[in-house]
């Protein structure tokens, strides 16, 4: 059977931006989860050919709103107009028919299926005898269009992919068109697990898509992305829209202020105060990546903050894991003195205990210390929970609520709290700021600096360059090896990128 490549999404005949009939319009939409009012009457409209930036603190209601647009949640009150006609019960099918596609914050791929098979799942049109080939070609084409140079193949199992690669697949899948084309693509923190260059590829694609008449809602806590990509920016706070203006009328400070955070005071200098290493006589971690050639190895001294950089999936997480496992046992590759606490970046896979309350999720790492005569002391446990809620401003009415009732960023804060509340001397952080809002980030940076001051050591893998400025020096990884060790003074984005890509001759 000859299937013409249905092709790369060429969104509909371009219509003039800001046309009078919006693609979707919400007015007075509310949504409550039990006692939590996630949305308190939201009005929002998006027209064809525009990129709407959506920002707000963790738990502001962004994801909830997007889920309503995608038909996976139903709003309590208010109206939703899609494709010109008001819809009572908006369903997944209706959203799909209206051309709405959504890349959810917590990805929704089937790990047991291949990339091509996941594509088929999203595109019911791909069926019949010999569907595999066109499905593979389709996703391959979109991937190459959005992320030129990617290495994902259609028959790779999703479970075998890195988190970032999974995110790329999910994004590509939603930009792919089969019978009907996507008109509105919702991207809920799409760049949180992508490294810088890939994120740039995505944002460029968003611009192209919009230029061709498509619409995008872009949610991100990386304000630069929002400011540089959106046509219009909507700010949410506590379940309401508090500001809505063309992007050009916002700058970073204005956005931060609109989100309800105190304006920043030059962030780098705050960190710089503590970032100078105070090497004690003995390192508490000495580790070599298993694939390392040559003599280079990683060392960490008490009170030091050391960064791990490089493209996503080049062995940073693996080394953190290795160090975590080496604590308390012997390993060929790492010598660790002192206990390690881990802050997961892939929170669903590595961090969250989905049946437990927020409190239990926080205290799991500290239980031994909270026990008396072998029994966990309930009062002390509660005290730790409350302290965590306060320091990290976890947005919840009750720490006994299930962890999954938290917004993504707040879950991440709980994981942070877990590690910092523990007695570990070493904190290994695996790109831990994924989805954390700017305000909280700043507070967390300060906490880290404070803790380092007290003697805790931090290993910090991050995909955001700015975060590396908090570190005293940075190891750059490529293909499972450390290829450079950049002291703070020499740290520039170009240098990191250069080391990440370039084949160095020596070892």
């Amino acid at each position, binding site marked *: 059977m000859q299937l013409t490549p249905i092709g790369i999404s060429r969104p509909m005949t371009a219509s003039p931006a800001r046309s009078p009939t919006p693609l979707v319009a919400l007015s007075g939409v509310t949504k409550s989860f039990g006692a939590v009012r996630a949305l308190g009457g939201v009005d929002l409209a998006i027209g064809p050919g525009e990129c709407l930036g959506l920002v707000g603190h963790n738990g502001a209601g962004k994801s909830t709103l997007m889920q309503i647009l995608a038909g996976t949640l139903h709003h309590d009150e208010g109206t939703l107009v899609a494709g010109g006609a008001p819809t009572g019960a908006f369903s997944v099918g209706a959203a*799909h028919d209206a051309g709405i596609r959504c890349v959810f914050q917590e990805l929704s791929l*089937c790990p047991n299926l291949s990339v091509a098979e996941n594509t088929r799942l999203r595109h019911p049109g791909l069926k019949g005898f010999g569907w595999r080939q066109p499905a593979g070609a389709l996703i391959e084409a979109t991937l190459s269009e959005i992320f030129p140079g990617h290495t994902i193949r259609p028959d790779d199992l999703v479970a075998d992919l890195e988190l970032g690669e999974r995110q790329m697949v999910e994004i590509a899948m939603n930009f792919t068109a089969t019978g009907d084309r996507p008109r509105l693509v919702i991207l809920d923190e799409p760049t949180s697990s992508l490294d810088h260059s890939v994120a740039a590829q995505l944002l460029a694609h968003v611009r192209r898509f919009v230029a061709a008449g498509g619409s995008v809602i872009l949610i991100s806590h990386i304000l630069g992305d929002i400011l540089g990509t959106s046509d219009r920016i909507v700010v949410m706070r506590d379940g309401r829209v508090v500001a809505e203006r063309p992007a050009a009328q916002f700058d970073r400070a204005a956005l931060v202020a609109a989100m309800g955070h105190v304006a920043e005071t030059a962030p780098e200098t705050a960190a710089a105060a503590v970032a100078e290493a105070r090497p004690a006589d003995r390192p508490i971690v000495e580790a070599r990546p298993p694939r390392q050639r040559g003599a280079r190895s990683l060392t960490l001294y008490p009170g030091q903050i050391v960064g791990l950089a490089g493209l996503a999936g080049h062995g940073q997480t693996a080394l953190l894991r290795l160090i975590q496992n080496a604590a308390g046992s012997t390993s060929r590759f790492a010598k660790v003195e002192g206990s390690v606490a881990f802050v997961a970046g892939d929170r669903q896979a590595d961090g969250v205990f989905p049946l437990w309350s927020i409190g239990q999720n926080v205290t799991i790492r500290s239980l031994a210390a909270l026990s008396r005569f072998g029994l966990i002391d309930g009062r002390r446990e509660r005290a730790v929970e409350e302290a965590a809620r306060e320091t990290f401003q976890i947005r919840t009415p009750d720490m006994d609520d299930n962890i999954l009732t938290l917004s993504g960023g707040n879950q991440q804060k709980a994981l942070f709290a877990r590690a910092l509340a523990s007695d570990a001397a070493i904190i290994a952080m695996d790109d831990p700021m994924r989805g954390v809002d700017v305000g909280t980030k700043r507070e967390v940076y300060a906490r880290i600096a404070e803790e380092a001051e007290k003697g805790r050591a931090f290993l910090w893998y991050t995909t955001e360059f700015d975060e590396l400025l908090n570190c005293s020096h940075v190891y750059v990884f490529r293909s499972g090896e450390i290829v450079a060790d950049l002291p703070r003074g020499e740290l520039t984005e170009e240098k990191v990128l250069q080391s990440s890509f370039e084949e160095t001759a020596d070892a």
Partner: protein
Amino acid sequence: MTRFSSRVLRSAVPALSFGVILAAIFVIQPRAMSYVGMNLMLNLALPIAFATIAQLFVLTIGDLDLSIGGFVSLVACIAATWLNDTPLLGVAALLACIGVYALLGALIHWRNLPSIVVTLGMSFVWLGCAVLILPSPGGSAPTWLTAIVKFKTPYVPLSILGAAVLAFVVHVALMRSAAGVVLRGAGGNAQAVARAGWSLLRVKVTMYALAGCFGVLSGLVLVGTTTSADANIALRYTLFSIAGAILGGAEFTGGRVSPIGAVLGALTLALVGSLLSFMRISPDWQIGAQGIMLIAVLALRTLVNRLEAREA
């Protein structure tokens, strides 16, 4: 590239276990290396293979069926009584059984019940029905059924052909077809499937109905071979089917299954029994040896995985 080759290796393990055991049998008992020999060793494995596939459908969506043994027993009893005496009633009863299975799927979905408890209850129900239909062992299989099951195919015994066809058909339907993707996806991430607009209810009902269908086929093939039934005839199939599927590489979570592996797993279990009886172990230790053999087969799998890990 490593991703691909490791997957190939993983899926080759069940075949490897099967081959190793078969080779051991041929060494100990050369007589087994013949048409008659293979048929004798494997014809009772065919119904187990069908039951294993039935179990596999349920495993695919992350559930477990503890009732398949009782169900196959019931089907055997129906086939040896009603299907023989009053074929119309028999066919209706078998269809009704499949219908009940499909309803179970719906019930489990609607009420969000743990499949283990529901099928545990059903195992009593099926057995109770079997005892009611056939209070004392007996009955006889319809002659057409015996004729089909005992048919002497040229060159390759029917049991092997049957198993091959079974594995191929289910593999194509579940692993290659477009519909199979949705069914397996529901096991991997049900929410994603729902978000993509598919009905989870339909998925569950389909899978349980398929389990019912293959359970019925298992029962029919079984009575065809034994010619007569017994209410307790297949109670062990519950364990066998789970063991076979696991031997074949299935996992309890996430829709990771392999129909070809499962069929090979079921056949391997049968061969383990044969090998043991050829080895003439003291009766005290015959049961224990079965355990050791199972461990050995699975240790082989681990060994291969280790080799593969070293390569990667």
